[in-house]
């Protein structure tokens, strides 16, 4: 049977391999970085144009008040959930196969949240008044409606972002000390020295570290669930047809975990090749990740069916019309593409032969996320296009190139942040991989001792 990691891998070798990733990645790294910068350039150009010309260029109108910006905002918020799944939930479940891959998943959480946050600003349009987002009563006579899920959103996302950054940083301190000890000059040395806070791996430090990491992990799980439930409440608490569904919060959480897991598969393949992490990001770990993704995909499919069934068999005719409109109207190709990419395509993940086929997984994981992005768009656009009142119907609205450009660029922005992170900070947790190797070696010794005893 394949192993998650080799037990005979030397601890010094782990340090060496991971530290090498900070210095000389494969050429593909620079190609990805260049493409990401170009994509960000497109988004910046579109945003500057929108800022100077006005929100009209986004081609949003009176019924389509939330366009791709909010759909993509939800997509990025959702993407962030898998980091919490891998680092917190699997940590509490003692699933040690997560250890070589949780660091980059956590980084993914942080950067997706940062990307999501930008969409709020872009959507607002008036960037110079962005502080109005902060819900506090003030001399500006702003009286925040604390009963609105939009205000809850601000609280939840700010909490999630700051907690995720803290979780990522705290978990990285022992590794930063390793970097400090092994890099001998330059700005990196100074950065690692400051950030490692003088960590020396003393028993007092480890003892408190362990309990802190566990505690923050325990906080992060309900936080992650609440964040996407609150984002779901932005929709479910309104009376729009297609949104007013009780199962929306769990549906959003499942969708979030699903898109996040798919993104982890994509990044797993990229990092494994780019940073030569074949020893750590093994096919056995990929198999487990793929199985997890498959399971979550099925949960998402089930919740989708619940949503459709409760609308279909319910008494809300407008909601039923909305569902029919989605499946047969101008958005039908996107709706069925969502069903295909989100529910049909993942079925191939159930087959063993595909579970470790990296090129196929790379393509499939991207398509799964295309499906998940379409899901978010299909929540927003059809409801605005075909709402309660026929005189507000607008079936022909299509987002302008400015909206598409900014959405396109956001993927570049995320990739840029992520790739820079992986070059500056260890994307594989060295001390946790050592723990994994150590505990597996102990288990092996225990097994052979037991055999010897017989």
């Amino acid at each position: 049977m394949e192993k998650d990691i080799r037990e005979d891998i030397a601890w010094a070798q782990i340090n060496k391999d991971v530290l090498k990733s900070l210095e000389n990645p494969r050429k593909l790294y620079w190609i990805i970085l260049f493409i990401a910068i170009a994509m960000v350039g497109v988004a910046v150009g579109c945003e500057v144009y929108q800022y100077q010309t006005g929100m009209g260029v986004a081609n949003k109108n009176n019924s389509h008040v939330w366009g791709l910006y909010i759909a993509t905002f939800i997509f990025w918020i959702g993407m962030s959930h898998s980091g919490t799944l891998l680092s917190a939930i699997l940590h509490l479940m003692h699933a040690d196969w997560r250890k070589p891959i949780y660091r980059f998943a956590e980084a993914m959480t942080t950067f997706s949240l940062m990307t999501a946050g930008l969409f709020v600003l872009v959507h607002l349009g008036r960037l110079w008044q962005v502080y109005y987002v902060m819900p506090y009563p003030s001399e500006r006579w702003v009286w925040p409606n604390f009963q609105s899920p939009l205000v809850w959103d601000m609280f939840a996302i700010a909490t999630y972002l700051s907690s995720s950054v803290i979780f990522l940083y705290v978990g990285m301190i022992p590794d930063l000390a390793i970097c400090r000890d092994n890099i001998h000059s330059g700005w990196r040395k100074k950065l690692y020295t400051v950030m490692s806070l003088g960590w020396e791996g003393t028993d007092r430090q480890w003892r408190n570290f362990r309990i802190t990491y566990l505690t923050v992990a325990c906080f992060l799980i309900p936080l992650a669930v609440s964040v996407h439930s609150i984002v779901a409440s932005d929709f479910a608490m309104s009376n729009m047809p297609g949104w007013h569904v009780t199962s929306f919060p769990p549906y959003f959480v499942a969708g979030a975990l699903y898109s996040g897991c798919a993104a982890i598969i994509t990044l797993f393949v990229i990092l494994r090749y780019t940073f030569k992490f074949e020893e750590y990001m093994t096919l056995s770990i990929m198999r487990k990740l793929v199985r997890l993704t498959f399971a979550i995909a099925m949960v998402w499919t089930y919740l989708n069916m619940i949503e459709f069934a409760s609308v279909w068999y319910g008494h809300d005719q407008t909601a039923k019309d909305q569902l029919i409109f989605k499946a047969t109207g101008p958005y039908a190709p996107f709706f069925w593409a969502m069903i295909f990419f989100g529910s049909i395509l993942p079925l191939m993940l159930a087959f063993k032969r595909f579970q470790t086929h990296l090129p196929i997984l790379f393509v499939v994981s991207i398509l799964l996320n295309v499906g998940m992005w379409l899901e978010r768009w299909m929540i927003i656009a059809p409801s605005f296009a075909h709402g309660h009142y026929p005189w507000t119907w607008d079936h022909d609205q299509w987002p302008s190139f400015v909206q598409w450009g900014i959405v396109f660029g956001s993927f570049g922005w995320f990739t840029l942040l992520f790739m820079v992170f992986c070059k500056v900070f260890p994307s594989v947790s060295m001390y946790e991989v050592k723990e994994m190797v150590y505990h597996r070696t102990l288990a092996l010794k225990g097994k052979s001792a037991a055999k010897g005893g017989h």
Partner: protein
Amino acid sequence: MSQRHLLALFNDFDGAAAAISELRATSIKGFDIDDLILKSPIEHPEVEAVLGDKPINVQWFTLIGACMGGLLAFFLVASAQANFFAQIKGGKPIVPLPPDFVLTYEMFILGGVFITVLGFLICAGLPAKRSPLYSSKVSEDQIGILVKGDESALTTLKTIFTKHRALEIQEEAGR
């Protein structure tokens, strides 16, 4: 009498644990076992028993932080809502509890996380200055035992470390 530090490096936890056990069992004049510091590249639950019970207080910070965060959020939000002269409530509750619970819950978590990390820094003694003796091998693959003792105790300490196959013993320069 002046005290000096010794750092002994071991290949594995077994050797380090055996050395600590012997140090604990032997009465060495001018050496206090509570001054012993174990340094390692990973967590060491197996050695914790040998090191003896040491308190962990981070959870108290967590409790206080979470409660303070939740209470602060509730009272800030409720006091803003209670300014009913400026807001027309139309017969609805002035301080509606269900929506306020959501914000209280979020800030409960935020307070818990922030103060837990503050507690971690305080309890772990971070940020810390570099200790008198340090080897980067400790962040790689070796286990270090840092001890402090009178000049008279150093020989015994060294003997115990050598007996348990210390790979290297570093000694702080005399003053």
